[in-house]
């Protein structure tokens, strides 16, 4: 296995890098990541497959700066993540998150939920509105902008979460089982949209999933077992 050489694109710029990353919980009683090393190039779509508890979400959280490794280094776009120094910049401009549950705020409208990252980043209002207009059009949510989250279907909620994640034009999208709570048909539609937007916007996608059918449509498919990454030779 040699994850760092997986991309077949010409001289790709590495935007996600994990070097010998270890992570455990409960004072070391539960070892989740055991020396994970991994790289992803700009614009790649990468699927992480593996059984529950194998460390997929943990790896995504480390790349998103939501957690810290016990050992090893995690860097985004060549900069090691530091909770005190560059985490806000990372979360506001470089990373977008999509979770299994939409994690939208129910009292706000679709539009307001999507504008949250732009409020956090202090993005220009006109630019934010224009960006939302484009994304809403693309995800088929234009007619739902002023609707509250409770009024939306599961697929619409997840598409809203996707819009929100992309509002600040991040270079990396971390998706943790983004279609895990949807039925098969909706799941396929949302994933197609996710893949399409990621590809056309040049976003690097790192997605944790149980669905091997969806995972196979990504540029790379990585297997996680026992706290380590295994990249099938076919990649």
């Amino acid at each position, binding site marked *: 296995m040699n994850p760092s050489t997986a991309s077949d694109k010409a001289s790709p710029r590495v935007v996600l890098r994990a070097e010998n990353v270890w992570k455990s919980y409960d004072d070391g009683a539960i070892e989740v990541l055991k020396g994970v090393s991994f790289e992803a190039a700009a614009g790649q779509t990468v699927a992480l497959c593996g059984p529950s508890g194998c460390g997929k*979400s943990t790896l995504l*959280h480390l790349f*998103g700066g*939501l*957690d810290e490794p016990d050992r090893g280094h995690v860097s985004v776009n060549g900069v090691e993540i530091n909770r005190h120094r560059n985490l*806000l910049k990372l*979360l*506001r401009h470089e990373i977008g*998150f999509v*979770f*299994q*549950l939409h*994690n*939208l*705020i129910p*009292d*706000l409208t679709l*539009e*307001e939920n999507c*504008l*949250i*990252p*732009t*409020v*956090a*980043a202090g993005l220009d*209002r*006109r630019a934010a*509105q224009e960006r*939302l*207009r484009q994304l809403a059009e693309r995800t088929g949510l234009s007619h739902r*902008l*002023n609707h509250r989250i409770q009024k939306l279907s599961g697929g619409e909620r997840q598409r809203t979460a996707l819009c*929100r994640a992309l509002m*600040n034009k991040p270079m990396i999208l971390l998706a943790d089982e983004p279609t895990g709570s949807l039925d098969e048909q909706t799941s396929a539609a949302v994933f197609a949209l996710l893949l399409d937007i990621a590809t056309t916007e040049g976003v690097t996608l790192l997605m944790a999933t149980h669905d091997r059918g969806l995972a196979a449509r990504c540029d790379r498919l990585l297997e996680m077992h026992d706290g380590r990454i295994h990249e099938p030779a076919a990649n």
Partner: protein
Amino acid sequence: MLRTGRGRTIVIFLKLIVTNLRRHRIRSIISVAGIAFSVAAMLTVVTILQGAIGMFSGILSSDSEIVVFERNVSDLFFSNVPAAAIQEIAGWPMVAHADPVLFGIVSSADHPIVTCFGLTAADARIRKATWLAGDRQQFARHDDDVVLGERAAEFLSAAYGSHVQIGHATFHVVGILKTANGFEDGGVFMPLASAQSFFHKEGISSVITIKLRDKNDAAAFKSAVKAKYASLIALEDEEFNRSYSQFKILKATAWAVAGCGLAMGGLGVANTMIMSVFTRVREIAILRVNGFSNMQIAAIVFGEAAVVSLLGAALGLLTGTGLLFALKLVPALHGYIDVSIQPEIMLVVLLLALLTGIAGALYPAIYAMRVRAVEALRFE
């Protein structure tokens, strides 16, 4: 359609602030009510005591601008100004008139405290009052003559021309007068000499109220008193209100009681905010994942506390004002309550309520800032 209002960002922030208040309406209402009751209590207590102070100082400043009394006394009832000083000061060229007043407290059959004023017939309190019965020509004709304030006549059940028992003596009511001042309205006015005899203070008055021919002579007058009488002090009304120890104690008591009430309200806000943060940990985690800084998250918590405090303060000011008006209508309190709420008191009360709310949100805000998104979002 997208709205393009300039305040969209502010609207989202405000919605994040009020969203939890709307979700837990009963808890929010209780919290607002806590602050409202505190503010109403604060406003009522402070205004009543300020009114009482104003009325008492009004007794002293009736048609005068300077009060002379014994230096270092804790209470004017213990002040002794000798007759010789009164006569001499009254004769100073800069003095238009000098009115000696003797204050005394006595009990009657049903009332443990009746305030007595020993006055001369020329005193402004007698001259300027509205006489409901009798007239000021009758004042001080005989040693046992008294004039009653309207409310005193009421609670002593005394009528014009009747006799009334005050302390161990019986007096003849030769007039009933009405003043806007609650203390005076509930007081007994005696000729100065009678009061001195009654209170065993012959030749003594408690204070002299001074009207100067020219107000600009105030400094010269005070210097003259200081030079001539080591045991006396002359203060302009404003100075007296600031420095009189009884007023200071009353003011301190009022603000202390009010502060305790507000602290209780603050604890209510703290409790609400802690519960609010606990119930929206996941939401805070979502905001954090979407780039909200510690300060932005704290701003939401403080904003929520500020909304509770300001709503409570506004409601409390309305309730307090209503309560003061209602108390003013109670006959027994007539003249004692001044409902003219000073703007600076309202401002102080508002600021204190806001500060209390902010203080109550301190720990919840710190807790919110420490929420770890990874833990809050782990269990979906």
